[in-house]
């Protein structure tokens, strides 16, 4: 039995979650605090990956990072290939995860009493310091919940990954893709094992979220 897809999926999901956090935290903060006019439009763009067909997302992502796009060319020129590598799988998973993190965290930021941030300002703190010492700690629960949801979504991505990374065994074949191939090949016992592992991993993580969400001040 080949466990490569398990390790690949873990790595890809972790990397995708990190990428989601890096882009999603500032985006959520921006949506919650700074963009009253752009909010509806940007909000719709952010949520779109939840409802668009994965093939559509995958197609455009492929166009964006393919060898003929400026982005693809740039990465190629520095010796990094994107399309049909594990890096593309990371990008695919991140695209799918982004809305879950951003929406959860945006709600968390919006739930903060604005006077707490004002109080910090009057006490001599810069915007940067207010963010790290007041806004983020108070949105902590939403951040944890959003991160875990994002990770679980990344772990389970099928369609976008298939479009941009393919399903190359030993290179880009993640857990969900491997299960699909196993079922197609009628290797049910192995498919069963991998599927069960996925369920257990996700349930453990979601229970963890429940825990984290119970932290009270």
């Amino acid at each position: 039995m080949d466990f490569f897809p398990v390790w690949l999926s873990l790595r890809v999901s972790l990397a995708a979650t990190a990428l989601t956090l890096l882009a999603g935290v500032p985006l959520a903060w921006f949506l919650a605090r700074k963009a009253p006019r752009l909010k509806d439009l940007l909000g719709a763009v952010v949520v779109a990956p939840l409802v668009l067909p994965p093939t559509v997302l995958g197609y455009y992502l492929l166009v964006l990072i393919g060898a003929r796009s400026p982005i693809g060319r740039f990465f190629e020129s520095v010796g990094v290939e994107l399309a049909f590598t594990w890096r593309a799988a990371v990008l695919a998973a991140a695209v799918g995860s982004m809305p879950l993190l951003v929406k959860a965290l945006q709600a968390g930021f919006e739930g903060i009493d604005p006077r707490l941030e004002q109080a910090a300002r009057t006490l001599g703190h810069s915007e940067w310091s207010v963010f790290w010492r007041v806004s983020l700690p108070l949105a902590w629960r939403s951040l944890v919940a959003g991160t875990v949801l994002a990770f679980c979504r990344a772990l389970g991505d099928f369609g976008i990954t298939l479009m941009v990374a393919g399903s190359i065994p030993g290179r880009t074949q993640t857990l969900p893709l491997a299960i699909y191939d196993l079922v197609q090949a009628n290797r049910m016992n192995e498919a069963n094992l991998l599927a069960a592992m996925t369920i257990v991993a996700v349930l453990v993580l979601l229970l963890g979220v429940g825990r984290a969400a119970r932290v009270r001040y």
Partner: protein
Amino acid sequence: MLSVRLRKAFPDFTLDVAWESREPVVALVGPSGSGKTLTLQCLAGLATPDDGRVVVGERTLFDAKAGVDVPSRRRRLGYVFQGYALFPHLTARENIAFGLRGQSRAHIAERVERITEWLGLDGLGDKRPRELSGGQQQRVALGRALAVDPDLLLLDEPLSALDAPLRRQLRGDLARIVREWGKPTVIVTHDLPEAYQLCDRIVVYDHGRVVQSAPRAELLWQPASETVARIMGIPNVLRGTVVKATPDRIQLRWRGQLLEAVNSPARAYLPAADMPLAFFIRPEYVRLIRKDRGPADPVHHMNVMRGTVVEDADFGTTWTLRIRLDEPGPPAQGAFDLEVEVPHLVYEILEIDRDRHWEFSIHRGSIHVLP
């Protein structure tokens, strides 16, 4: 010491105020929605006025003409928010230390220690805000604001989140703390006794404007207008017509009575006969005439009237009586004409609960004619 001029327009509200104070402690009093909190936010730099100027001592914090707008974090102020806005994720000690930065740990710890001791918060430093009572939260908020040794202290309804008995006690504590601290302080409140006890100067707001700014005693005895008297919740603000006016006396007709009052020293002209005029009578200055001592002596009693107590309420140390005059026609204040306050002891001795019909008098000096 403190000079404030602000203009800020919204679609449905415009703040346009100017006031100054040489006294350290100022109260902003007025109905809700009159622009008091917005003024504090402008002073704190949390809202930006369209026009105006804010000067604290020697420092200009805001000047639209000169393009000065010191950001909140550099204004060196302490802001106690309504409801306190304590950081729920930090302990009382961490809350108080929040504004102390760029100093050594030992120095911060010592400063926080001094503040907690001063405010009577010993032993509560490790508790989080939700574990503290309302009064303790209020003092932590005060400590957080004072720890940074600000140039200006802003308090937004500092006592409104507390229940009545605690409120009265903490009012005294707050008055002491603010006096000991001794730097410019602006307190927003809609409670006149609170403003009177805590502050030296009272600025009365109404619909985004200042209707009067005066030292507290002057404001209490000489409200600038009927509006001010009503905003301040002065009871028995009444309207009569002038019968005759001289520089030091005014005769008024009100509810069929001829009342004699002292003319307002602030009045620049003598009102003509038959002119309508507003005045107020302090409930605690109305004197009930004892029935067991013969007829009322005209030397001691003037402006004598008769009426029936139609309603009364026990306020613990005093009783408030609502009296309707023995006069036909609609009463001046809904179901009654005059509110009268008597000490508990007087209420018991005179057996007012049983005996409802009384004769009473008001000294001419206790009828305050409004300008």
